[in-house]
């Protein structure tokens, strides 16, 4: 019995969806992509070309909801379906969109480069808590024109896991799909066994930009999964109420799904987002606030009521270092996301409101994820009687249950065994181990992981083809060579 958090009742869900439909008529959705407007117009929407405002009637959306898949899988390099979008599967990947990396020795948020992303990929690859990789940080040692696809290139070389990614332009989304097709063997294989899902973002309030809508159309036609990342900013770019933000999220997602399904009915798409409350003191976006998690949990419930796969941004923090604030915000976010049955929860590893990634935090967050996953397993009934069968031979002594075979058989099923990052030592033992705090223990763990990591063996021909493809784009972007990668000498 998977425990479940429900912040909305059925009546409230119906009201949210009903008002979302109203928003799509008034004020309507601003669609800044001509092709998307045309698709919507042909389907029967009222389009004002000058203002780009489209009024999308309910019946068009309902039709899109009929064709959208309720479940799909992402496949690892070897072709195994290891990530399930749909149902109540709960999976995690590192947060992406970072621009810097936390240097553990100096606490500096250093502008990220190739070697930093590789470190993050290696750590995420080695931790089973991360079901997928993300293209976690932008590498500033390559030209801007290839920033997005270069991240994917590195993940493809250093990981076998499925990938949550995204393009920065309408041009590069095509190129990134081609990169994935090289590894898949063909565009047709990529469609059948997608390795990656691509984020596509509406702009709050109620705008599908040329870029966002363009990405949706391209992904739909390629049959590569899209993930809508709607970002209502409650109190600034969305109504101040949490329910208002959830309703705007629904309107942005429903309009996006409509554009997507009109471009190619049946292509997979995810009801996702990165909403946030708006901090009225600093003007920031507190992704670690409990209200942010409440918006996420609620919109996921709305998406699930429509039978859609879900995603959210949770498990990150506003803190700039790996301190208690980072721990409590990240842990609570992961737990709320898990209890909401969200299929893919992105955000681990990130500090400073999704701006900075940290391999050490990935290691610590993995412990929080493991706790959340244990919670999801719920209370289990292992034996015929709950307790009475355990007392034979028990003589009112404390250690008696340790001697029972059933204890040995079941303890690992009942208790999650945390990694060494979690301290449960005695005071003396802790002192003898160096009196280290969580951050210090995580630093050691990261070093261990990096030392034992081996790059996966990939098909050399595919690797060479991928390298040649990316090198060609790099040359067009103005550099003659790609940064030199350790354990990788391309042909």
């Amino acid at each position, binding site marked *: 019995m998977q425990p479940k958090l429900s912040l909305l009742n059925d009546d409230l869900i119906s009201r949210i969806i009903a008002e979302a439909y109203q928003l799509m008529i008034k004020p309507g959705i601003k669609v800044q992509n001509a092709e998307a407007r045309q698709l919507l117009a042909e389907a029967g929407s009222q389009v004002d070309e000058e203002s780009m405002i489209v009024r999308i009637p309910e019946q068009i959306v309902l039709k899109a909801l009929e064709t959208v898949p309720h479940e799909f899988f992402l496949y690892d390099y070897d072709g195994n379906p290891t990530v399930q979008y749909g149902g109540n599967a709960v999976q995690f990947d590192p947060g992406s969109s970072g*621009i810097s990396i936390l240097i553990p020795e100096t606490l500096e948020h250093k502008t990220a480069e190739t070697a930093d992303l590789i470190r993050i990929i290696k750590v995420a690859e080695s931790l089973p808590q991360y079901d997928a990789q993300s293209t976690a940080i*932008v590498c500033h040692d390559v030209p*801007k024109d290839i*920033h997005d696809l270069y991240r994917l290139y590195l993940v493809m070389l250093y990981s076998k896991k499925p990938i949550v990614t995204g393009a*920065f332009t309408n041009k590069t989304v095509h190129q990134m799909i081609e990169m994935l097709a090289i590894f898949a063997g063909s565009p047709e294989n990529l469609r059948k066994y997608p390795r990656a899902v691509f984020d596509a973002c509406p*702009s709050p309030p109620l*705008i599908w*930009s040329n870029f966002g809508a363009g990405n949706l159309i391209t992904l739909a036609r390629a049959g590569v999964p899209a993930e809508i990342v709607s970002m209502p*900013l409650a*109190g*600034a*770019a969305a109504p101040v109420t949490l329910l208002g933000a959830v309703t705007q999220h629904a309107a942005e997602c429903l309009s996006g799904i409509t554009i997507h399904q009109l471009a190619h009915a049946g292509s997979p798409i995810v009801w996702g987002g990165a909403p946030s409350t*708006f901090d*009225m*003191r*600093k*003007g*920031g976006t507190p992704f670690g606030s409990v209200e942010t998690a409440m918006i996420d949990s609620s919109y996921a419930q709305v998406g699930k009521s429509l039978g859609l796969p879900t995603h959210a941004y949770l498990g990150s923090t506003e803190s700039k270092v790996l301190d208690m604030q980072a721990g409590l915000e990240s842990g609570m976010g992961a737990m709320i996301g898990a209890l909401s049955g969200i299929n893919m929860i992105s955000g681990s590893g990130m500090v400073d*409101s999704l*701006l900075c990634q940290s391999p050490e935090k990935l290691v610590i967050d993995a412990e929080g994820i493991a706790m959340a996953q244990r919670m999801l397993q719920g209370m289990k009934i292992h034996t015929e009687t709950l307790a009475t069968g355990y007392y034979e031979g028990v003589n009112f002594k404390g250690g008696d249950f340790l001697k029972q075979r059933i204890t040995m058989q079941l303890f690992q099923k009942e208790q999650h065994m945390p990694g060494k990052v979690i301290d449960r030592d005695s005071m003396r033992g802790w002192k003898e181990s160096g009196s280290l705090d969580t951050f210090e223990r995580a630093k050691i763990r990261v070093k261990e992981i990096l030392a034992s990591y081996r790059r996966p063996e990939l098909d050399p021909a595919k690797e060479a083809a991928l390298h040649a493809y990316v090198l060609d784009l790099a040359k067009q972007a103005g550099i003659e060579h790609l940064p030199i990668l350790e354990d990788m000498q391309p042909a």
Partner: protein
Amino acid sequence: MSEEMYKQMAQCIIDGDSDIAIELAKKSIELKMHPLETITKGFVIGVNYIGDQFGLGEAFLPELVMAGEAMKAAVAVLEPELLKLGEAREMLGRVVLATVEGDIHEIGKTLVGTMLSASGFEVVDLGVDQPADKIIGKALEINANLIGMSALLTTTMVRQREVIEELDKEGLRPRIKVMVGGAPITRDWVTKIKADGYSEDAIGAVKVAKDLVGKGDQ
């Protein structure tokens, strides 16, 4: 009499009540109070108070924005009167604001605009996704002494540098000073692109702008 009015004016700004601000501004005209004094002794006191409270963490962004809106409403009533008197409110400076090309984030920039204009700057807000030539063209057109640029994306913050390089190429600095802002902007970045000023928030931006136009004491 006017002392009491000034108090009410300051209070309506603090309350963020545009309707009362307009009403009081109109009443001050009927009473033949001097419009400039009405602004500086009445309404501006409210703006300064809210700004200070915000700085202390006692007031929040919605209060700041509503105060700015109320200030704008009052000034809009009083400005024609000033013109009639052949006077103009002495502006602290002329600012062109924009979010750089490729970036459509505007919350922070709009806040800065509201606070700058409430504090006595003449502000032209070009909006979002503005290329360098448009920003510079507008600055020249209105003879601005300050350009403020916002970028929220790491992919677009490089555009701030392009504008500064273009200004330098045209020899327009230091005549036009440049201030930048946005979530990914750091002091290192500001130094790297040789911007003149930078602030973490809208209240800080007012101080930076005043310093840059040599009116730091006001």
